[in-house]
Protein backbone atom coordinates (compact mmCIF):
# COMPACT_ATOMS: atom_id res chain seq x y z
CA UNK A 1 0.00 0.00 0.00
CA UNK A 2 2.52 2.59 1.17
CA UNK A 3 5.98 2.29 -0.32
CA UNK A 4 9.06 4.37 0.36
CA UNK A 5 11.78 4.17 -2.24
CA UNK A 6 15.20 5.71 -1.65
CA UNK A 7 13.68 8.51 0.38
CA UNK A 8 16.02 11.17 1.69
CA UNK A 9 15.70 14.50 3.41
CA UNK A 10 18.35 17.18 3.34
CA UNK A 11 18.01 20.34 5.42
CA UNK A 12 19.80 23.54 4.54
CA UNK A 13 21.35 24.93 7.68
CA UNK A 14 23.64 27.76 8.65
CA UNK A 15 23.70 31.31 7.34
CA UNK A 16 22.10 31.51 3.85
CA UNK A 17 21.60 27.73 3.94
CA UNK A 18 25.25 27.16 3.20
CA UNK A 19 25.57 23.75 4.77
CA UNK A 20 23.52 20.64 4.21
CA UNK A 21 22.31 18.35 6.96
CA UNK A 22 21.17 14.93 5.85
CA UNK A 23 18.43 13.75 8.18
CA UNK A 24 17.26 10.76 6.15
CA UNK A 25 19.10 9.05 3.36
CA UNK A 26 18.06 6.32 0.95
CA UNK A 27 15.32 4.77 3.09
CA UNK A 28 13.02 2.26 1.46
CA UNK A 29 10.36 0.00 2.96
CA UNK A 30 6.69 -0.88 2.58
CA UNK A 31 3.64 -0.89 4.79
CA UNK A 32 0.86 -3.23 3.69
CA UNK A 33 -2.82 -3.38 4.56
CA UNK A 34 -3.37 -4.52 8.13
CA UNK A 35 0.32 -4.51 8.78
CA UNK A 36 2.13 -2.81 11.63
CA UNK A 37 5.62 -1.64 10.76
CA UNK A 38 7.65 -0.17 13.55
CA UNK A 39 10.33 2.36 12.84
CA UNK A 40 12.89 2.18 15.60
CA UNK A 41 15.78 4.50 16.21
CA UNK A 42 17.33 6.82 18.70
CA UNK A 43 16.67 10.56 18.87
CA UNK A 44 17.86 12.23 15.70
CA UNK A 45 17.87 9.04 13.68
CA UNK A 46 15.34 10.54 11.28
CA UNK A 47 12.38 8.38 12.24
CA UNK A 48 10.04 11.27 12.96
CA UNK A 49 11.16 13.00 9.77
CA UNK A 50 10.11 9.91 7.83
CA UNK A 51 6.73 10.01 9.57
CA UNK A 52 6.33 13.67 8.69
CA UNK A 53 7.29 13.04 5.07
CA UNK A 54 4.69 10.29 4.81
CA UNK A 55 2.16 12.76 6.23
CA UNK A 56 3.31 15.39 3.71
CA UNK A 57 4.18 17.80 6.50
CA UNK A 58 7.79 17.83 5.33
CA UNK A 59 8.87 17.80 1.73
CA UNK A 60 10.84 14.88 0.39
CA UNK A 61 14.30 15.87 -0.91
CA UNK A 62 14.98 12.70 -2.87
CA UNK A 63 13.31 9.39 -3.70
CA UNK A 64 9.58 8.77 -3.79
CA UNK A 65 6.81 7.83 -1.43
CA UNK A 66 3.94 6.10 -3.17
CA UNK A 67 0.48 5.10 -2.03
CA UNK A 68 -0.96 2.32 -4.16
CA UNK A 69 1.64 3.17 -6.77
CA UNK A 70 0.80 6.89 -6.88
CA UNK A 71 3.49 9.35 -5.89
CA UNK A 72 1.99 11.15 -2.91
CA UNK A 73 3.53 14.49 -3.87
CA UNK A 74 1.63 14.27 -7.17
CA UNK A 75 -1.72 14.03 -5.38
CA UNK A 76 -2.72 17.64 -5.72
CA UNK A 77 -5.75 17.47 -3.51
CA UNK A 78 -4.31 17.09 -0.05
CA UNK A 79 -7.71 16.31 1.38
CA UNK A 80 -8.01 13.24 -0.80
CA UNK A 81 -4.71 12.02 0.59
CA UNK A 82 -5.53 12.83 4.19
CA UNK A 83 -8.76 10.88 3.91
CA UNK A 84 -6.62 7.81 3.59
CA UNK A 85 -3.57 8.65 5.66
CA UNK A 86 -3.65 10.25 9.08
CA UNK A 87 -1.22 10.77 11.91
CA UNK A 88 -1.19 10.84 15.68
CA UNK A 89 1.67 12.67 17.32
CA UNK A 90 3.74 12.20 20.40
CA UNK A 91 2.53 15.00 22.62
CA UNK A 92 -1.26 14.93 23.00
CA UNK A 93 -1.29 18.23 24.89
CA UNK A 94 0.37 20.08 22.05
CA UNK A 95 -2.04 18.58 19.48
CA UNK A 96 -4.97 20.53 20.89
CA UNK A 97 -5.32 24.24 20.51
CA UNK A 98 -5.39 25.21 24.19
CA UNK A 99 -7.98 27.96 23.78
CA UNK A 100 -10.64 25.80 22.17
CA UNK A 101 -12.63 22.85 23.46
CA UNK A 102 -10.97 19.51 22.78
CA UNK A 103 -13.76 18.24 20.52
CA UNK A 104 -12.90 20.95 18.04
CA UNK A 105 -10.62 18.37 16.38
CA UNK A 106 -13.80 16.52 15.39
CA UNK A 107 -15.49 19.70 14.28
CA UNK A 108 -12.59 20.41 11.93
CA UNK A 109 -13.01 16.98 10.35
CA UNK A 110 -16.72 17.56 9.88
CA UNK A 111 -16.18 21.01 8.42
CA UNK A 112 -13.54 19.87 5.95
CA UNK A 113 -14.74 16.41 4.96
CA UNK A 114 -18.39 15.98 5.88
CA UNK A 115 -20.05 19.38 5.56
CA UNK A 116 -23.28 17.74 4.40
CA UNK A 117 -23.75 15.49 7.41
CA UNK A 118 -26.44 16.61 9.82
CA UNK A 119 -25.50 17.70 13.33
CA UNK A 120 -27.31 14.85 15.05
CA UNK A 121 -25.91 12.17 12.78
CA UNK A 122 -22.44 13.61 13.20
CA UNK A 123 -22.80 13.58 16.96
CA UNK A 124 -23.68 9.90 16.72
CA UNK A 125 -20.63 9.18 14.63
CA UNK A 126 -18.38 11.03 17.05
CA UNK A 127 -19.81 9.10 19.96
CA UNK A 128 -19.31 5.81 18.14
CA UNK A 129 -15.72 6.73 17.37
CA UNK A 130 -15.10 7.70 20.98
CA UNK A 131 -16.62 4.46 22.19
CA UNK A 132 -14.42 2.53 19.80
CA UNK A 133 -11.39 4.01 21.58
CA UNK A 134 -13.01 3.20 24.93
CA UNK A 135 -13.79 6.74 25.93
CA UNK A 136 -17.06 7.81 27.51
CA UNK A 137 -18.40 10.57 25.21
CA UNK A 138 -20.14 12.30 28.08
CA UNK A 139 -16.85 12.52 29.91
CA UNK A 140 -14.73 14.10 27.21
CA UNK A 141 -17.04 16.09 24.95
CA UNK A 142 -17.30 19.78 25.76
CA UNK A 143 -14.12 19.79 27.86
CA UNK A 144 -11.00 21.89 27.40
CA UNK A 145 -7.71 20.15 26.71
CA UNK A 146 -6.30 21.08 30.11
CA UNK A 147 -9.23 19.37 31.79
CA UNK A 148 -8.43 16.02 30.18
CA UNK A 149 -5.58 13.59 30.75
CA UNK A 150 -2.87 12.78 28.24
CA UNK A 151 -4.31 9.30 27.69
CA UNK A 152 -7.79 10.66 27.03
CA UNK A 153 -6.45 13.25 24.60
CA UNK A 154 -4.33 10.69 22.80
CA UNK A 155 -7.32 8.40 22.39
CA UNK A 156 -9.42 11.32 21.13
CA UNK A 157 -6.82 11.85 18.44
CA UNK A 158 -7.06 8.22 17.45
CA UNK A 159 -10.87 8.55 17.42
CA UNK A 160 -10.43 11.52 15.11
CA UNK A 161 -8.48 9.33 12.70
CA UNK A 162 -11.11 6.60 13.02
CA UNK A 163 -13.83 9.07 11.98
CA UNK A 164 -12.15 9.45 8.63
CA UNK A 165 -12.06 5.72 7.98
CA UNK A 166 -8.40 5.87 6.98
CA UNK A 167 -6.18 3.15 5.56
CA UNK A 168 -2.84 4.15 7.04
CA UNK A 169 -2.03 5.62 10.42
CA UNK A 170 1.31 7.18 11.23
CA UNK A 171 1.72 6.83 14.98
CA UNK A 172 4.66 8.96 16.03
CA UNK A 173 5.74 7.97 19.54
CA UNK A 174 2.13 7.91 20.59
CA UNK A 175 2.82 5.83 23.66
CA UNK A 176 5.79 7.61 25.13
CA UNK A 177 3.81 10.31 26.93
CA UNK A 178 1.38 7.88 28.48
CA UNK A 179 1.66 6.11 31.79
CA UNK A 180 1.93 2.36 31.92
CA UNK A 181 -1.75 1.62 32.56
CA UNK A 182 -3.14 3.67 29.66
CA UNK A 183 -0.31 2.51 27.45
CA UNK A 184 -1.62 -1.01 27.09
CA UNK A 185 -5.11 0.30 26.31
CA UNK A 186 -3.79 2.36 23.42
CA UNK A 187 -1.69 -0.54 22.17
CA UNK A 188 -4.67 -2.88 22.21
CA UNK A 189 -6.63 -0.22 20.41
CA UNK A 190 -4.03 -0.23 17.66
CA UNK A 191 -4.37 -4.00 17.46
CA UNK A 192 -8.14 -3.60 16.97
CA UNK A 193 -7.61 -1.07 14.21
CA UNK A 194 -5.11 -3.31 12.54
CA UNK A 195 -7.58 -6.18 12.60
CA UNK A 196 -9.89 -3.92 10.57
CA UNK A 197 -7.23 -3.72 7.87
CA UNK A 198 -5.53 -0.50 8.88
CA UNK A 199 -1.83 -0.23 8.09
CA UNK A 200 0.16 1.36 10.89
CA UNK A 201 3.56 2.98 10.74
CA UNK A 202 4.60 2.88 14.37
CA UNK A 203 7.44 5.28 15.09
CA UNK A 204 9.13 4.59 18.40
CA UNK A 205 12.40 4.50 20.26
CA UNK A 206 11.14 1.79 22.56
CA UNK A 207 12.28 -1.64 21.44
CA UNK A 208 9.95 -3.62 23.64
CA UNK A 209 6.97 -1.68 22.27
CA UNK A 210 8.18 -2.28 18.76
CA UNK A 211 8.46 -5.95 19.49
CA UNK A 212 5.01 -6.03 21.08
CA UNK A 213 3.01 -4.43 18.30
CA UNK A 214 4.75 -4.83 15.00
CA UNK A 215 4.84 -7.35 12.20
CA UNK A 216 7.93 -5.86 10.70
CA UNK A 217 10.66 -3.72 12.15
CA UNK A 218 12.89 -1.12 10.54
CA UNK A 219 15.90 -0.08 12.61
CA UNK A 220 17.21 3.34 11.67
CA UNK A 221 20.57 4.80 12.45
CA UNK A 222 21.72 8.25 11.37
CA UNK A 223 18.97 8.43 8.78
CA UNK A 224 19.82 5.11 7.18
CA UNK A 225 18.32 1.68 7.56
CA UNK A 226 20.62 -0.47 9.68
CA UNK A 227 18.46 -3.53 9.66
CA UNK A 228 14.92 -4.43 8.73
CA UNK A 229 12.76 -7.47 8.46
CA UNK A 230 10.04 -9.45 10.16
CA UNK A 231 10.03 -8.54 13.84
CA UNK A 232 10.80 -12.05 15.14
CA UNK A 233 13.87 -12.20 12.88
CA UNK A 234 15.18 -8.76 13.75
CA UNK A 235 14.69 -9.23 17.46
CA UNK A 236 15.54 -12.94 17.56
CA UNK A 237 18.54 -12.88 15.30
CA UNK A 238 19.88 -9.35 15.04
CA UNK A 239 22.68 -9.14 12.46
CA UNK A 240 23.68 -5.50 12.68
CA UNK A 241 25.92 -4.55 15.63
CA UNK A 242 23.78 -1.46 16.25
CA UNK A 243 20.63 -3.54 16.65
CA UNK A 244 22.50 -5.82 19.01
CA UNK A 245 23.69 -2.95 21.15
CA UNK A 246 20.16 -1.52 21.22
CA UNK A 247 18.77 -4.85 22.35
CA UNK A 248 21.49 -5.19 24.97
CA UNK A 249 20.65 -1.74 26.29
CA UNK A 250 17.03 -2.59 27.15
CA UNK A 251 16.64 -2.84 30.92
CA UNK A 252 15.37 -6.23 32.04
CA UNK A 253 12.42 -6.43 34.35
CA UNK A 254 14.06 -8.83 36.76
CA UNK A 255 17.56 -7.45 36.71
CA UNK A 256 18.74 -4.47 38.70
CA UNK A 257 21.34 -2.30 37.07
CA UNK A 258 23.81 -3.03 39.82
CA UNK A 259 23.61 -6.74 38.98
CA UNK A 260 23.87 -6.33 35.23
CA UNK A 261 27.19 -7.23 33.65
CA UNK A 262 29.20 -4.11 32.91
CA UNK A 263 30.31 -5.08 29.43
CA UNK A 264 27.68 -5.55 26.80
CA UNK A 265 25.21 -3.13 28.33
CA UNK A 266 27.28 0.01 28.04
CA UNK A 267 27.12 1.33 24.51
CA UNK A 268 30.81 1.78 23.86
CA UNK A 269 31.93 -1.66 24.83
CA UNK A 270 29.17 -3.30 22.88
CA UNK A 271 30.14 -1.44 19.73
CA UNK A 272 33.80 -2.18 20.22
CA UNK A 273 33.04 -5.82 20.54
CA UNK A 274 30.85 -5.63 17.50
CA UNK A 275 33.76 -4.43 15.39
CA UNK A 276 35.38 -7.78 15.86
CA UNK A 277 32.34 -9.63 14.55
CA UNK A 278 32.13 -10.18 10.82
CA UNK A 279 30.02 -7.62 8.95
CA UNK A 280 26.77 -9.29 7.93
CA UNK A 281 26.53 -7.22 4.75
CA UNK A 282 29.96 -8.09 3.43
CA UNK A 283 29.77 -11.69 4.59
CA UNK A 284 26.54 -12.20 2.67
CA UNK A 285 26.66 -13.66 -0.81
CA UNK A 286 26.94 -11.11 -3.64
CA UNK A 287 23.55 -12.06 -5.07
CA UNK A 288 21.82 -11.23 -1.81
CA UNK A 289 22.41 -7.48 -2.10
CA UNK A 290 18.98 -6.94 -3.53
CA UNK A 291 18.49 -3.38 -2.28
CA UNK A 292 20.96 -0.51 -2.34
CA UNK A 293 23.17 -0.82 0.72
CA UNK A 294 21.26 -3.77 2.12
CA UNK A 295 21.92 -7.48 1.97
CA UNK A 296 19.13 -10.02 2.39
CA UNK A 297 20.51 -12.42 4.99
CA UNK A 298 17.27 -14.34 5.46
CA UNK A 299 13.86 -14.23 3.82
CA UNK A 300 12.81 -10.57 4.07
CA UNK A 301 15.53 -9.80 6.60
CA UNK A 302 17.84 -7.04 5.35
CA UNK A 303 20.95 -5.74 7.00
CA UNK A 304 23.30 -2.88 6.17
CA UNK A 305 27.06 -2.79 6.45
CA UNK A 306 28.18 -2.29 10.02
CA UNK A 307 30.77 0.25 8.94
CA UNK A 308 33.50 -2.37 8.73
CA UNK A 309 36.81 -2.20 6.91
CA UNK A 310 35.26 -3.81 3.85
CA UNK A 311 33.24 -0.67 3.17
CA UNK A 312 36.21 1.58 2.44
CA UNK A 313 37.35 0.14 -0.91
CA UNK A 314 33.75 -0.04 -2.08
CA UNK A 315 33.20 3.63 -1.39
CA UNK A 316 36.33 4.40 -3.36
CA UNK A 317 35.00 2.41 -6.27
CA UNK A 318 31.71 4.32 -6.11
CA UNK A 319 33.53 7.63 -6.14
CA UNK A 320 35.65 6.58 -9.10
CA UNK A 321 32.54 5.61 -10.96
CA UNK A 322 31.03 8.96 -10.18
Amino acid sequence: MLKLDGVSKVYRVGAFGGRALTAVSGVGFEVGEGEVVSLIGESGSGKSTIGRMVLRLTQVSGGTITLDGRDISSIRDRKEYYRQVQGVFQDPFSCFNPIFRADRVFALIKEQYFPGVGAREWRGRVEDALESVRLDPGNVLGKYPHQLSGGQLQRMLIARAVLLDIRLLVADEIISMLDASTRIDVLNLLADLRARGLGILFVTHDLSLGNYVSDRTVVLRDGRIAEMGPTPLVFGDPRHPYTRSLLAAVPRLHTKWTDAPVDGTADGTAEERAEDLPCAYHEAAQGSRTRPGLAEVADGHFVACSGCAGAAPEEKKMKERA
Partner: protein
Amino acid sequence: MRNEALHFALRNRKLVVGTVVVAVFLVAGVVGPMTIDHKPADYVGPAMAPPSGEFWFGTTTFGQDVFAQFLYGLRSTFLVGVLGGVLASVVGMVVGFVAGYRGGWVDELLTMVTNIVLVLPALVVLLIVNAYLGVRSVGVQALFIGLTSWPWAARAIRAQTFSLRSRDFVDLARLSGVRTPKIILREIAPNMSSYLFLTFILLFGSAILIAASLDFIGLGPTDSVSLGLMLNNAARWSALQLGMWWWFVPPGAGITAIVGALYVMNVGLDEVFNPKLREM
Protein backbone atom coordinates in the same frame (compact mmCIF):
# COMPACT_ATOMS: atom_id res chain seq x y z
CA MET B 1 -17.76 29.23 20.61
CA ARG B 2 -18.81 32.79 19.90
CA ASN B 3 -21.68 32.66 22.36
CA GLU B 4 -19.38 31.24 24.95
CA ALA B 5 -16.83 34.04 24.51
CA LEU B 6 -19.69 36.50 24.82
CA HIS B 7 -20.85 34.77 27.97
CA PHE B 8 -17.49 35.30 29.63
CA ALA B 9 -17.01 38.74 28.11
CA LEU B 10 -20.18 40.08 29.71
CA ARG B 11 -19.13 38.75 33.10
CA ASN B 12 -15.64 40.19 32.98
CA ARG B 13 -15.62 43.42 34.95
CA LYS B 14 -12.35 44.73 33.49
CA LEU B 15 -13.55 44.27 29.96
CA VAL B 16 -16.93 45.84 30.66
CA VAL B 17 -15.48 48.87 32.47
CA GLY B 18 -12.83 49.45 29.80
CA THR B 19 -15.36 49.13 27.01
CA VAL B 20 -17.78 51.52 28.70
CA VAL B 21 -15.09 54.20 29.17
CA VAL B 22 -13.92 53.97 25.57
CA ALA B 23 -17.50 53.91 24.34
CA VAL B 24 -18.39 57.03 26.35
CA PHE B 25 -15.48 58.97 24.82
CA LEU B 26 -16.28 57.60 21.39
CA VAL B 27 -19.91 58.68 21.64
CA ALA B 28 -18.81 62.07 22.99
CA GLY B 29 -16.46 62.47 20.03
CA VAL B 30 -19.00 61.34 17.44
CA VAL B 31 -22.22 62.88 18.76
CA GLY B 32 -20.88 65.73 20.93
CA PRO B 33 -19.82 68.10 18.16
CA MET B 34 -23.32 67.96 16.65
CA THR B 35 -24.80 69.42 19.83
CA ILE B 36 -22.61 72.52 19.73
CA ASP B 37 -23.67 75.30 17.42
CA HIS B 38 -20.34 77.10 17.18
CA LYS B 39 -16.95 76.09 15.78
CA PRO B 40 -14.23 75.09 18.27
CA ALA B 41 -12.02 77.98 17.17
CA ASP B 42 -14.74 80.62 17.45
CA TYR B 43 -14.29 83.32 20.06
CA VAL B 44 -17.53 82.87 21.91
CA GLY B 45 -16.92 83.75 25.52
CA PRO B 46 -14.92 85.84 27.96
CA ALA B 47 -11.15 85.23 27.99
CA MET B 48 -9.59 82.91 30.56
CA ALA B 49 -12.90 82.06 32.21
CA PRO B 50 -12.82 79.05 34.58
CA PRO B 51 -15.39 76.24 34.14
CA SER B 52 -18.95 77.46 34.58
CA GLY B 53 -22.49 76.47 33.74
CA GLU B 54 -22.22 78.10 30.35
CA PHE B 55 -18.72 76.94 29.44
CA TRP B 56 -18.33 73.56 31.14
CA PHE B 57 -14.57 73.37 30.69
CA GLY B 58 -13.94 77.15 30.77
CA THR B 59 -12.44 79.20 27.99
CA THR B 60 -8.95 79.80 26.56
CA THR B 61 -6.86 82.96 26.67
CA PHE B 62 -8.78 84.08 23.59
CA GLY B 63 -12.22 83.18 24.78
CA GLN B 64 -12.60 79.93 22.84
CA ASP B 65 -14.84 77.24 24.35
CA VAL B 66 -12.55 74.46 25.75
CA PHE B 67 -15.46 71.99 25.93
CA ALA B 68 -16.20 72.44 22.24
CA GLN B 69 -12.53 72.02 21.44
CA PHE B 70 -12.43 68.90 23.61
CA LEU B 71 -15.36 67.27 21.79
CA TYR B 72 -13.98 68.11 18.35
CA GLY B 73 -10.53 67.07 19.53
CA LEU B 74 -11.84 63.69 20.68
CA ARG B 75 -13.28 63.15 17.24
CA SER B 76 -10.07 63.80 15.32
CA THR B 77 -8.00 62.01 17.94
CA PHE B 78 -10.14 58.89 17.60
CA LEU B 79 -10.01 59.22 13.86
CA VAL B 80 -6.23 59.47 13.64
CA GLY B 81 -5.78 56.77 16.29
CA VAL B 82 -8.18 54.31 14.69
CA LEU B 83 -7.04 54.89 11.09
CA GLY B 84 -3.34 54.90 11.95
CA GLY B 85 -3.67 52.05 14.45
CA VAL B 86 -5.76 49.86 12.15
CA LEU B 87 -3.48 50.44 9.17
CA ALA B 88 -0.32 49.74 11.16
CA SER B 89 -1.89 46.66 12.78
CA VAL B 90 -3.08 45.27 9.48
CA VAL B 91 0.29 45.74 7.77
CA GLY B 92 2.13 44.42 10.84
CA MET B 93 -0.10 41.36 11.13
CA VAL B 94 0.01 40.46 7.46
CA VAL B 95 3.79 40.81 7.31
CA GLY B 96 4.31 39.08 10.66
CA PHE B 97 1.98 36.15 9.98
CA VAL B 98 3.20 35.50 6.46
CA ALA B 99 6.89 35.78 7.40
CA GLY B 100 6.48 33.65 10.50
CA TYR B 101 4.32 30.96 8.94
CA ARG B 102 6.01 30.66 5.57
CA GLY B 103 9.61 30.97 6.72
CA GLY B 104 12.41 30.52 4.20
CA TRP B 105 13.11 33.21 1.64
CA VAL B 106 9.72 34.85 2.12
CA ASP B 107 10.65 35.38 5.75
CA GLU B 108 14.08 36.74 4.89
CA LEU B 109 12.67 39.19 2.39
CA LEU B 110 9.90 40.44 4.67
CA THR B 111 12.24 40.69 7.65
CA MET B 112 14.61 42.77 5.55
CA VAL B 113 11.82 45.16 4.57
CA THR B 114 10.67 45.30 8.20
CA ASN B 115 14.15 46.15 9.43
CA ILE B 116 14.59 48.85 6.82
CA VAL B 117 11.33 50.55 7.85
CA LEU B 118 12.25 50.00 11.49
CA VAL B 119 15.52 51.91 11.26
CA LEU B 120 14.02 54.77 9.26
CA PRO B 121 13.86 57.84 11.52
CA ALA B 122 10.08 57.77 11.23
CA LEU B 123 9.37 61.20 12.68
CA VAL B 124 11.89 62.88 10.40
CA VAL B 125 10.41 61.13 7.39
CA LEU B 126 6.94 62.17 8.49
CA LEU B 127 8.13 65.77 8.81
CA ILE B 128 9.64 65.80 5.35
CA VAL B 129 6.72 64.05 3.71
CA ASN B 130 4.20 66.27 5.45
CA ALA B 131 6.11 69.43 4.65
CA TYR B 132 6.75 68.41 1.05
CA LEU B 133 3.18 67.45 0.30
CA GLY B 134 1.73 70.26 2.31
CA VAL B 135 -0.91 67.86 3.48
CA ARG B 136 -3.20 69.08 6.20
CA SER B 137 -5.86 66.43 6.64
CA VAL B 138 -6.34 63.92 9.45
CA GLY B 139 -6.73 61.02 7.01
CA VAL B 140 -3.41 61.51 5.23
CA GLN B 141 -1.68 62.09 8.54
CA ALA B 142 -3.05 58.76 9.78
CA LEU B 143 -1.95 57.09 6.54
CA PHE B 144 1.67 58.13 7.00
CA ILE B 145 1.65 57.26 10.69
CA GLY B 146 0.21 53.84 9.89
CA LEU B 147 2.75 53.12 7.17
CA THR B 148 5.73 53.91 9.40
CA SER B 149 4.78 52.44 12.77
CA TRP B 150 4.07 48.79 11.92
CA PRO B 151 7.57 47.20 12.00
CA TRP B 152 7.91 46.33 15.68
CA ALA B 153 4.43 44.80 15.62
CA ALA B 154 5.40 42.72 12.58
CA ARG B 155 8.56 41.52 14.31
CA ALA B 156 6.77 40.51 17.48
CA ILE B 157 3.95 38.76 15.59
CA ARG B 158 6.45 36.97 13.38
CA ALA B 159 8.29 35.65 16.45
CA GLN B 160 5.05 34.46 18.06
CA THR B 161 3.91 32.83 14.83
CA PHE B 162 7.24 31.05 14.55
CA SER B 163 6.78 29.42 17.91
CA LEU B 164 3.11 28.59 17.34
CA ARG B 165 3.44 27.12 13.87
CA SER B 166 5.68 24.31 15.11
CA ARG B 167 3.03 23.21 17.58
CA ASP B 168 1.36 19.92 16.78
CA PHE B 169 -2.13 21.40 16.55
CA VAL B 170 -1.06 23.33 13.47
CA ASP B 171 0.15 20.09 11.88
CA LEU B 172 -3.10 18.45 12.91
CA ALA B 173 -5.08 21.21 11.21
CA ARG B 174 -3.00 20.64 8.08
CA LEU B 175 -3.78 16.93 8.34
CA SER B 176 -7.43 17.91 8.50
CA GLY B 177 -7.03 19.57 5.12
CA VAL B 178 -7.35 23.15 6.37
CA ARG B 179 -5.75 25.72 4.08
CA THR B 180 -2.93 28.01 5.15
CA PRO B 181 -4.84 31.32 5.46
CA LYS B 182 -7.48 29.58 7.52
CA ILE B 183 -4.86 27.97 9.75
CA ILE B 184 -3.31 31.37 10.41
CA LEU B 185 -6.71 32.91 11.06
CA ARG B 186 -8.32 30.15 13.06
CA GLU B 187 -5.49 28.30 14.78
CA ILE B 188 -2.62 30.72 15.23
CA ALA B 189 -4.24 34.15 15.53
CA PRO B 190 -6.74 33.18 18.27
CA ASN B 191 -3.82 32.03 20.41
CA MET B 192 -2.41 35.51 20.36
CA SER B 193 -5.65 37.46 20.04
CA SER B 194 -5.09 39.38 23.24
CA TYR B 195 -1.59 40.18 22.08
CA LEU B 196 -2.94 41.37 18.75
CA PHE B 197 -5.40 43.57 20.55
CA LEU B 198 -2.65 44.95 22.77
CA THR B 199 -0.66 45.67 19.62
CA PHE B 200 -3.58 47.59 18.24
CA ILE B 201 -3.97 49.53 21.48
CA LEU B 202 -0.31 50.50 21.57
CA LEU B 203 -0.34 51.46 17.89
CA PHE B 204 -3.54 53.41 18.52
CA GLY B 205 -1.88 55.25 21.40
CA SER B 206 1.34 55.92 19.54
CA ALA B 207 -0.57 57.16 16.49
CA ILE B 208 -2.26 59.70 18.77
CA LEU B 209 1.07 60.78 20.22
CA ILE B 210 2.83 61.04 16.86
CA ALA B 211 -0.10 63.06 15.55
CA ALA B 212 0.23 65.38 18.57
CA SER B 213 3.95 65.83 17.86
CA LEU B 214 3.20 66.73 14.25
CA ASP B 215 0.50 69.15 15.39
CA PHE B 216 2.98 70.80 17.68
CA ILE B 217 5.43 71.71 14.93
CA GLY B 218 2.68 73.03 12.74
CA LEU B 219 2.44 70.07 10.37
CA GLY B 220 -0.85 68.72 11.59
CA PRO B 221 -4.31 69.39 10.23
CA THR B 222 -4.87 73.12 10.44
CA ASP B 223 -8.58 73.14 9.79
CA SER B 224 -9.51 71.14 12.87
CA VAL B 225 -8.52 70.64 16.46
CA SER B 226 -7.15 67.56 18.22
CA LEU B 227 -6.45 66.76 21.84
CA GLY B 228 -2.72 67.02 21.07
CA LEU B 229 -3.20 70.43 19.47
CA MET B 230 -5.11 71.60 22.57
CA LEU B 231 -2.29 70.49 24.85
CA ASN B 232 0.24 72.29 22.73
CA ASN B 233 -1.81 75.47 22.53
CA ALA B 234 -2.13 75.35 26.29
CA ALA B 235 1.62 74.96 26.61
CA ARG B 236 2.33 77.71 24.09
CA TRP B 237 0.13 80.22 25.91
CA SER B 238 1.52 79.29 29.32
CA ALA B 239 -1.71 77.83 30.68
CA LEU B 240 0.22 76.04 33.42
CA GLN B 241 1.97 79.19 34.64
CA LEU B 242 -1.24 81.18 34.50
CA GLY B 243 -3.10 78.54 36.52
CA MET B 244 -5.52 77.75 33.66
CA TRP B 245 -5.73 74.06 34.57
CA TRP B 246 -9.05 73.67 32.71
CA TRP B 247 -7.23 74.19 29.42
CA PHE B 248 -4.72 71.30 29.61
CA VAL B 249 -6.32 68.86 32.08
CA PRO B 250 -9.25 67.74 29.86
CA PRO B 251 -7.17 66.82 26.78
CA GLY B 252 -4.44 65.17 28.93
CA ALA B 253 -6.99 63.25 30.99
CA GLY B 254 -8.87 62.33 27.80
CA ILE B 255 -5.82 60.74 26.15
CA THR B 256 -4.87 58.98 29.38
CA ALA B 257 -8.39 57.70 29.99
CA ILE B 258 -8.81 56.38 26.44
CA VAL B 259 -5.47 54.56 26.30
CA GLY B 260 -5.80 53.36 29.91
CA ALA B 261 -9.30 52.01 29.31
CA LEU B 262 -8.07 50.19 26.21
CA TYR B 263 -5.34 48.61 28.32
CA VAL B 264 -7.81 47.44 30.97
CA MET B 265 -9.96 46.04 28.15
CA ASN B 266 -6.95 44.12 26.96
CA VAL B 267 -6.38 42.46 30.33
CA GLY B 268 -10.06 41.53 30.41
CA LEU B 269 -9.98 40.15 26.88
CA ASP B 270 -6.97 38.06 27.79
CA GLU B 271 -9.07 36.38 30.45
CA VAL B 272 -11.98 35.88 28.09
CA PHE B 273 -9.89 34.31 25.34
CA ASN B 274 -7.66 32.20 27.56
CA PRO B 275 -9.71 29.69 29.55
CA LYS B 276 -6.79 29.11 31.91
CA LEU B 277 -6.99 32.69 33.16
CA ARG B 278 -10.71 32.57 33.86
CA GLU B 279 -11.46 32.92 37.51
CA MET B 280 -14.68 30.96 37.36
